């Protein structure tokens, strides 16, 4: 216990780590806020620069960027009606009308306080539940990991894309990209075409930066000429009466956010929309109707999306299954530093777990400080034209990709993925499941083969194992229901068992 507390406090007492966390949080707020820059993009580029650093330094910076970035999107949503990140879509619906009424400062203040509140709820849940889940996860079998991987990829694919088929395609493409190279079990070449550079596999950082950096920059070219609207800023510190009044709503939204964040495959954006929807249903008489600047509609999604950060760390650290694209990238960072997120992480490296918890809490405090200050300078910076941003994103992407192994070939991979990502995005595919597939693919492959070898190569026994063990059975049912719910059979099935609403 004492040891856990000591590890929790490492970044609070070390001035260098304190500085890195602060810098990360501040940078995250701007990255999240500037339309065209995303936290996923920034984290994937950051990984390539911090991989030579000590683990603690890199984690401190990345935790700050993540925490700040999830919050930062709300500022542009309020001020410019452009959600800086998908998790701020609901915030824009209520925040922008408030800004138009001249209450931009108040909206930002309330958003900040509630984000920090939600953040703490999520972190508390991480500290309490991760050790429990982790000891439970030690009972997981290789086939359970295979199922968890499948569920994670499919959830990201179905919840965010245009159609289930497009999500499934993206996930499978990611898995395929992850398969390229020498097979880790038999050292046989897969999709290597005799090329030595392909034998090492396709570098996943190049894929991440290509899909999230370059592709996004190319998509942004379309909206180069959209002008920004300026807002007046008044008082920023929210009224104490407001904070008291919305306390229980924020508590409830944080609960939703933590749970949604903790589910594999769902992150802050879905948490925010669900909490917003829940607030709309549960708040009976808002002072201002929803959609016209209701504070309730601002509090709920903001508390929820920051609570989802702590929630998302739970499956990532205990099961090694990323909750969404950003956590997939963070898992990539942990791999680079030689760490293996999973049930053994808390047993083998408990100090890293408590360090992460402490670090997220610290980043949350910095969020409060930076969130309530510097808004005037902020409005100047986010007005930075995209014509300047886009070329800079490309230069940063190129340096980032090169930095990992000093290999120019990786830069060409990045460009290829960037162009492919542009077309995929344009035609309604999501790139998130691809990255999840790249990260989870090799893990799923080895677990599949272990499970198959365990069943002595007998397909009947292999399938029987999925239903004859309690954990596998629950996961299998979840997986089958998920796939079924996306087919035309689902409404018919609901009708037969009498669940369909008339």
């Amino acid at each position, binding site marked *: 216990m004492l040891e856990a507390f000591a590890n929790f406090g490492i970044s609070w007492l070390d001035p260098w780590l304190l500085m890195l966390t602060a810098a990360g949080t501040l940078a995250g707020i701007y990255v999240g806020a500037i339309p065209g820059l995303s936290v996923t993009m920034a984290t994937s580029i950051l990984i390539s*620069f911090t991989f*030579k650093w000590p683990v603690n330094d890199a984690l401190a910076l990345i935790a700050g960027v993540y925490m700040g970035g999830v919050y930062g999107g709300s500022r542009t949503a309020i001020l410019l009606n452009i959600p800086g990140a998908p998790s701020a879509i609901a915030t824009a619906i209520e925040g922008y009308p408030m800004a138009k009424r001249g209450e931009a400062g108040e909206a930002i203040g309330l958003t900040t306080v509630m984000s920090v509140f939600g953040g703490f709820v999520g972190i508390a849940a991480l500290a309490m539940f991760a050790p429990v889940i982790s000891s439970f996860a030690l009972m997981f079998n290789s086939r359970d990991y295979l199922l968890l991987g499948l569920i994670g990829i499919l959830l990201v694919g179905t919840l965010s894309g*245009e*159609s*289930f*088929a*497009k999500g*499934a*395609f993206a*996930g*499978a493409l990611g*898995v*395929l990209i992850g*398969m390229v190279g020498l*097979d880790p079990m*038999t050292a*046989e070449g*897969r*999709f290597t075409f005799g090329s030595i550079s392909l034998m090492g596999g396709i570098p996943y950082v190049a894929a991440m930066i290509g899909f999230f950096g*370059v592709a996004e920059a*190319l998509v942004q*070219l*379309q909206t*180069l000429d959209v002008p920004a609207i300026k807002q007046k800023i008044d008082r920023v510190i929210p009224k104490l009466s407001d904070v008291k009044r919305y306390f229980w709503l924020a508590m409830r939204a944080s609960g939703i956010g933590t749970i949604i964040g903790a589910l594999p495959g769902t992150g802050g954006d879905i948490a925010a929309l669900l909490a917003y929807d829940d607030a709309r249903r549960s708040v009976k008489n808002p002072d201002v109707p929803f959609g016209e600047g209701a504070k309730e509609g601002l509090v709920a999604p903001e508390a929820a999306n920051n609570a989802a950060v702590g929630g998302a760390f739970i499956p990532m650290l205990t099961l090694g299954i990323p909750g969404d694209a950003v956590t997939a990238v963070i898992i990539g960072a942990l791999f680079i530093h030689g760490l293996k997120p999973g049930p053994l992480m808390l047993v083998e490296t408990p100090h890293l777990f408590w360090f992460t918890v402490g670090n997220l809490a610290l980043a949350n405090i910095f969020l409060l400080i930076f969130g309530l200050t510097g808004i005037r300078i902020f409005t100047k910076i986010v007005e930075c*034209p*995209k*014509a*300047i941003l*886009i*070329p*800079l994103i*490309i*230069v*940063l992407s*190129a*340096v980032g990709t*090169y*930095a990992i192994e*000093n290999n*120019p070939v990786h*830069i060409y991979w990045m*460009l290829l993925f*960037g162009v492919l990502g*542009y*077309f995929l995005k*344009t*035609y*309604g595919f999501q790139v998130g499941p691809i990255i999840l*597939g790249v990260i989870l*693919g090799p893990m*799923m*492959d080895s677990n*599949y*083969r272990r499970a*198959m*070898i365990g069943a002595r*190569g007998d*397909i009947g026994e*292999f399938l029987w194992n999925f239903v004859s063990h309690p954990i596998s059975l629950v996961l299998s049912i979840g997986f089958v229901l998920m796939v079924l719910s*996306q087919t035309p059979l689902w409404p018919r099935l609901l009708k037969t068992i009498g669940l369909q609403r008339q």
Partner: protein
Amino acid sequence: MSGQSTRRPGELAFICLLALFSAAALWQAYDISEFTGLSQPGVFPMLAAATMLLSCVFILRDTLRTRPNQEPGQRTAFWHTIMPMRLMVMLAMVALYLYAMPWLGFVIASGLFLFACFAYLWRKSLLISLLLAAGSLAAVYFLFRIVFEVVLPQGTLVPAGVL
């Protein structure tokens, strides 16, 4: 769950390309270890490629159900909305930049690239673009070379130790 009713220009062709790619991937995956056993290295790649191909069939079906763009300029619509001139120029500049980097080195290549992009996209005076390019290059160099200590491509054109 399909949310669109009209087909985007070039969408059908793109989906067909994806289907072709998936089929080729499936064939290559089969080549890895054929059907020699269920725990062979080729099984999972085959499953992934088969999933891609199957999804493509469904996506193709959904796409065929959408209304094709009936307007007369269908052929030009692709170049207008999906591959506009600005995108193609940018892509050419990016390709040239990445191609020239191992040769010119990071500093010169990035400087030229940033200047060309600012001049093309921002359309302010050349002097402003030049100053901006120099300023942002200095910031990037300081941050990554000095703070993060990243090794940047030196380039074969510039003798070692100059930059």
